[in-house]
């Protein structure tokens, strides 16, 4: 589903965010991406979304080479890849309902679909009572959950989650990862970057560890760190 072939990403000519990364993620897989801060996890996701272009190497999504996708087709790629951004990226001028609805609206879904899907997905993340709030009226954790809701309202075949539990308390975090697991069971490929030891250790999924831009571990049923 997602294939990285010797991918290197260099910012500004000297910041090596990813170096020689080769990874295969199969359809329906669930993998944690772990690694210290600044090790290139977010960059990994940005490359999949074609938000950044690789300096070297090839990336394939569902057997399509990203570098061969035409500019005007990029939006259609992004609709297939739901993403929970580390900094949420909510539209400040839209309410919670509108923020989530927007991801459906861009695909041209009719209104009644939106009116059915959005409240449902917001109920799943526990925000039914905040439909009409604006992002700056939400707590950090609530914003994070809106971002999660938006990423999968669209039922995309791939779901990326960049530290989706960073602002959530442990029980809420467990709930969210359980939700991701449920989504994964319906056939969605899920990639989740995280620092949360408990979660990684509890859920025992594939773990890809990055360090200074290199893949230093790729382990099925792994735990957070070697030492722990």
């Amino acid at each position, binding site marked *: 589903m997602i294939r990285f072939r010797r991918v290197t990403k260099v910012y500004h000519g000297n910041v090596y965010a990813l170096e020689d990364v080769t990874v295969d993620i199969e359809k329906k897989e669930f993998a944690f991406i772990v690694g210290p801060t600044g090790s290139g996890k977010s960059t990994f996701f940005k490359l999949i*979304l074609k938000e950044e272009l690789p300096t070297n190497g090839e990336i394939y999504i569902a057997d399509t080479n990203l570098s061969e996708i035409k500019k005007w087709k990029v939006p259609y790629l992004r609709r297939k890849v739901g993403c929970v951004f580390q900094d949420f990226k909510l539209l400040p001028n839209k309410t919670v309902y509108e923020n989530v609805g*927007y991801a459906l609206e*861009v*695909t041209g879904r009719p209104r009644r679909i939106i009116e059915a899907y959005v409240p449902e997905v917001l109920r799943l993340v526990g925000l039914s009572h905040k439909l009409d709030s604006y992002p700056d009226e939400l707590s950090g954790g609530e914003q994070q959950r809106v971002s999660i809701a*938006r990423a999968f309202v669209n039922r995309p075949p791939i779901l990326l989650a960049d530290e989706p539990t960073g602002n959530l308390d442990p029980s809420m975090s467990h709930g969210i990862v359980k939700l991701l697991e449920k989504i994964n069971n319906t056939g969605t490929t899920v990639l989740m970057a995280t620092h949360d030891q408990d979660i990684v250790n509890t859920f025992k999924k594939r773990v890809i560890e990055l360090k200074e831009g290199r893949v230093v571990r790729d382990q099925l049923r792994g735990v957070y760190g070697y030492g722990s």
Partner: protein
Amino acid sequence: MAVNAFYFLREATTSMRRNMALTVAAVMVTSLSLVLLGFVGMVVHAGDGLATNLKYRVDEIRVFLKDEVTAEERDSLERFIKKMPEVKSVRFISKEEALEEFKEMYKDSPDIIEQIEGNPLPAEFKVRMKDPKYNKAVAQRLMNRPEISVDENGKKEIKFPEDVVNKVLKWTGAIQKIGFVVVVAFAIVAVSLVSITIRMAIYARRNEIGIMKLVGATNWFIRWPFIVEGVFEGITGAIVGIIVAIMIHSWLMTKVEAAAEANLISTGYLVLLSFLLILVGMIIGALGSNFALRRYIEV
């Protein structure tokens, strides 16, 4: 697509409501530009009217006749003149009419009129050209006609429009040139102002646009609400502009027209101008937003 059109409209209106300050600013700038544009349009039109008015008087040469010319000779000359393709009309003024006119003209200076004995004034043809530029050529062709009187120096008495009128014409010509330059300048000013406004509005929302793109919106999906917004602001600006322009018109122009003793701007022209301004407003809005969006919408 029907769903989308509705969506874009809704999107544009909510965006305008939530960014009230920006919307008001954009409408203000548009209407200011269009008021300026309309105002200049009016002034140029009025100047044009004035110029035509004056031109009307300078495409005419006066051909004086010898006193001894008979009615037949006169008619033959008249036919000769009328046959020329450059000539629009010929008017005959008899010696008596000429005297009347002279007396009328100098009715405030009785001393001059008193000095006149009998009727020293010659009969004349007032020959109006299709364009003032033919004055010389027509006069040339009349030079060898015997019916035309001759002054002390043996020169045929054919009079061209007076110097003063010429000078005024030069003036209005210059004013019209300025007017044209000003209209073009203002059109450029208006378009650039609106596009600056819209560009700033988009600049203020550049982060939002980036997010929309990451969520999978196509460029046109992002653009449309802005364009609808631009067009709407353009139209609103035009309407405000028209109202202000009409107010200025009725307040100022009536004063000028009273002074000039002429109706320089017709209602028909105002209506035309209004439609034009609305159209220009729409185009400005649409072009402005589309142009501005180009910078911030690259995948």
